[in-house]
């Protein structure tokens, strides 16, 4: 009995429509994940009924029974013709546009009026029904939604869904329609790299979020790899460049292990296990072995009756695996280098690296990418940073955070906020800064690629009594290459970089530095009568038409200067 004399029944989750419950969904080609935000604003990934946080994007039918996730994935061995996998990228495309390579081991798409569809046995009888990609997607989203609703105990009404940066508008529309068919409102579709950045930004203080830097996001998935350079300026994100490789991913690494084990099996039993069904078994187990190798230095594989009734047990160590997979790693590294080039930046311009996607667990990939950048650059991957978030969960977390930010918005609000009139903004082509120090060096206050209108405040020390000058300049970034005598430190990182550096060991090494120089002076302001030990605060305000507003004042006094630089005619 309750102390409250009128115990009201708990709100029925089916009826209570006033409260919106929103989640983030990372809809991947290989796996999907769902996340929600706790009342204190932290994003948490939801495990489905089977306890999986990475839910394979696989649906399978046996009779009228529908399987989803890990259960469906295991059907790839026995029931591959009724199992649909890797279908995300088919959504919203015409049959003629899709690449069905990855579907060779599962139900193969067929052309129904240009829409990719699947012929599946879905009933208890032998009849084959045709299911379009849109219906498959709807089923998948419903299963994800139901898992989240079960976990939260409230009916999920809306979601933010992440998609790759190359998802076309028709694909987005198809995704929204598929979600709507499953009674799930898509609040917003955001790009995976931005979601990953958001997931990390959510751990930071507002000050840290405001720090300007270029973030490289490498999204290494199961069937494809994407890379993007995201400019983070005052917490706003602009994608500067993207690169995609549709053949690269975790499956390629699985293939490496499959080949390795197949050879071993042939050596032992003189039987090639690469028949369709054995291969499916081997693939499934090799994936597990790959995961173990990301954590430990060796892993075992054990498959009963792999081929011709022979059982297969074997062990592989990480070094062996990394050597075999070197080609794949090289491709990933070149993808990363490529995207930086595409953004017209230098590797030195990158301030932070985020590795996202399941393949990012591989330590060698993280260390290879980390080797590209100076040591000061954080590489957010489990192998290189102990505090890194789980790379498989980044998209879902980012989506959940975005969902919690816009949950109170109306549909109209969201549409207005994502309208091109708001999102398309002029970005500074050159950094703006002031000249400081004895050597008159350039100090950036507003980075290049900052969206305007923008405002920054900087405080400078005053060294001696007297007058000081605030010289506002546009800067230019140069890469200075210096030849320096290389200190012999070959032994230090012998085991992972000996191949590349053996020949260079004795040579002079190039040291590349990023230097900012004054490009042109915009304005000068004189501040008279500053006291030693005081501080000068400079506020720079750039309006959307590139007008510049400068206010410089000595902190705690009335001394100050204000000035305005009108925009160049026709430049805005």
């Amino acid at each position, binding site marked *: 009995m309750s*102390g409250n004399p009128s115990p009201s029944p708990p709100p029925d989750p089916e009826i209570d429509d006033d409260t919106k419950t929103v989640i983030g969904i990372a809809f991947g080609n290989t796996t999907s994940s769902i996340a929600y935000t706790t009342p204190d604003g932290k994003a948490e990934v939801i495990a489905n009924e089977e306890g999986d946080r990475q839910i394979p994007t696989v649906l399978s039918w046996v009779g009228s029974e529908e399987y989803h996730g890990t259960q469906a994935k295991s059907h790839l061995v026995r029931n591959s013709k009724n199992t649909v996998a890797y279908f995300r990228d088919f959504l919203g495309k015409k049959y003629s546009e899709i690449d069905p390579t990855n579907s060779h081991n599962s139900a193969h798409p067929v052309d129904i009026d240009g829409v990719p569809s699947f012929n599946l046995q879905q009933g208890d009888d032998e009849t084959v029904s045709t299911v379009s990609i849109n219906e498959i997607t709807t089923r998948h989203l419903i299963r994800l939604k139901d898992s989240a609703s079960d976990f939260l105990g409230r009916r999920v009404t809306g979601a933010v869904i992440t998609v790759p940066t190359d998802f076309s508008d028709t694909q987005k529309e198809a995704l929204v329609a598929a979600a709507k068919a499953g009674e799930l409102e898509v609040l917003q579709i955001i790009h995976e790299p931005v*979601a990953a950045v958001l997931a990390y*930004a959510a751990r930071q203080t507002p000050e840290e979020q405001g720090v300007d830097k270029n973030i490289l996001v490498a999204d290494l998935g199961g069937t494809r790899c994407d890379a993007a350079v995201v400019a983070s300026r005052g917490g706003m994100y602009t994608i500067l460049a993207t690169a995609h490789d549709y053949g690269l991913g975790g499956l390629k690494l699985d293939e490496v292990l499959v080949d390795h084990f197949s050879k071993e099996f042939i050596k032992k039993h003189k039987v090639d296990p690469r028949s369709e069904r054995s291969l499916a078994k081997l693939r499934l187990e090799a994936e597990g072995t790959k995961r173990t190798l990301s954590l430990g230095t060796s892993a075992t594989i054990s498959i009963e009756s792999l081929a011709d009734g022979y059982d297969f047990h074997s062990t592989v160590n990480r070094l062996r695996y990394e050597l075999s997979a070197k080609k794949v790693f090289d491709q990933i590294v070149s993808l990363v280098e490529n995207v930086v080039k595409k953004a017209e930046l230098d590797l030195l311009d990158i301030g932070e690296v985020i590795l996202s996607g399941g393949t990012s667990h591989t330590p060698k990939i993280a260390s290879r990418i980390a080797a590209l950048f100076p040591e000061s650059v954080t590489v957010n991957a489990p192998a290189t940073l102990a505090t890194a978030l789980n790379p498989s969960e980044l998209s879902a977390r980012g989506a959940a955070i975005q969902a919690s930010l816009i949950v109170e918005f109306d549909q109209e609000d969201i549409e207005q906020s994502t309208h091109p009139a708001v999102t398309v903004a002029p970005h500074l082509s050159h950094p703006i800064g002031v000249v400081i120090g004895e050597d008159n060096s350039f100090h950036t206050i507003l980075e290049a690629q900052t969206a305007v209108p923008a405002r920054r405040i*900087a405080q400078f020390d*005053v060294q001696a009594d007297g007058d000081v000058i605030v010289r506002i300049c546009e800067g230019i970034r140069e890469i200075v290459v210096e030849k320096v005598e290389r200190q012999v430190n070959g032994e230090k990182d012998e085991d992972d970089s000996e191949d590349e550096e053996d020949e260079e060991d004795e040579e002079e090494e190039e040291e590349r530095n990023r230097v900012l120089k004054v490009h042109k002076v*915009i304005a000068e302001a004189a501040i008279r009568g500053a006291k030693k030990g005081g501080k000068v605060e400079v506020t720079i305000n750039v309006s959307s038409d*590139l007008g510049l507003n400068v206010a410089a004042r000595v902190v705690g006094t009335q001394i100050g200067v204000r*000035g305005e630089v009108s925009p160049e005619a026709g*430049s805005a």
Partner: protein
Amino acid sequence: MASVKISKPLPALPADWNSESSFIVHAPLSPAVHRNLSPAGPHFLAHARRKRHSRTFSEDDRIQAQQNVKNVEDEDASEISEAESPLLLSRDPKDWKNQDHYAVLGLSKYRYKATDEQIKKAHRKKVLKHHPDKKAAVGAVDDDSFFKCIQKAMEVLSDPVKRRQFDSVDEGANRDPPSKKSKGNFYKGWGLVFESEGRFSRKQPVPKLGDDKSTKADVEEFYNFWYNFDSWRTFEYLDEEVPDDNENRDQKRYIQRKNNASRAKRKTEDTARLRKLVDDALSLDTRIKKFREEEKKLRNAKKDAREAEEKRLAEEARIKAEEEKKRKEEEEAREKAQKADSKKAKEAAKNAVKKNRRVLKGSVKDVNYFVSGNATPALIDSVLGEVDLVIAKIDNEDLQTLAKSLSAAKGADAVKSTWVEAVGELVKKGSAKAEDFKVFAA
């Protein structure tokens, strides 16, 4: 926006700075590149807000700050923020039986109405404020007595059974009935009383006292409910403490018995108190009197109506009877007259018929039965027999016309032709047969 602190100094103003103005513009900014911002993250949403409402940074900062302040205020107002009196803060946690648990958690305006959620929140808030660690950090004396009070209050209020026991004896939630002499609004004063008493009802919702406009059924239901009140109120909270196990067993049982007795006694008293309360309310309730009067009026109205109706009916019956009588008398008179008339007519007709018959028989006799000389008796018989047959068959009117034409006819031939005509007519009418007539046959 927070400012970035840069430790390097600004250069000194060069000696050749000779401008009057302290701000010189050299060149405009380089042209910008248009790019797409990713519509995600809190800072983008701030940007979108500024853009949509075309606010500047400082305007937006100000508006957001105002909104935040408002939100915080709203939150505080909606939550529990009662002042803590020094008396409350200095309570002895050992005296928890007399402690007002709701006041300790700052819920004294909600009391039995406070939801579990409110209690939880209030407790959290109070714990944050009064935790001994926090006090120690501030450097205050190590005094956790109020914290213990908070914990005890939570212990009681978070347990549904204990909370009911406390609610049963929570004096703070009781409302005294308005005194009989006070001129205040009956419904307002007593409504609150019944609302607070209603918290003990097992049956929910409790009917409301209502107001002047309440229907009789509602009022009756209200008093019925209160006279059959089913209360969950218990008085365990006021029990004398039962001594520990190691004490005398008899003593323990004695106290338990005493407690049970006092609980029962209190319960009886409470029932009696409530009964009296309802009696008082009923006696003061002007609606009862109003309803009674209305009923009386209604009953009287009915009676009057019935009497009037009876009177009207009696009058109507009387008028009807008179009319009937009159009508009957008239009818009788008319009938009498009619009878007399018809008798005369009948006699006249009879006479006429006799006379006609005589004429008819006379006519044949006058013409000597249509023969010359003495007529044979057989002939006379047959002629008279046919005349009788005609008389029997002919109706009165035809008889008269026949009699007339016969008296007009002169001579045997004319009389005979008249007879033949009359017989022909009779045969034509179908009242006589042609073969019956020999003499008068055509």
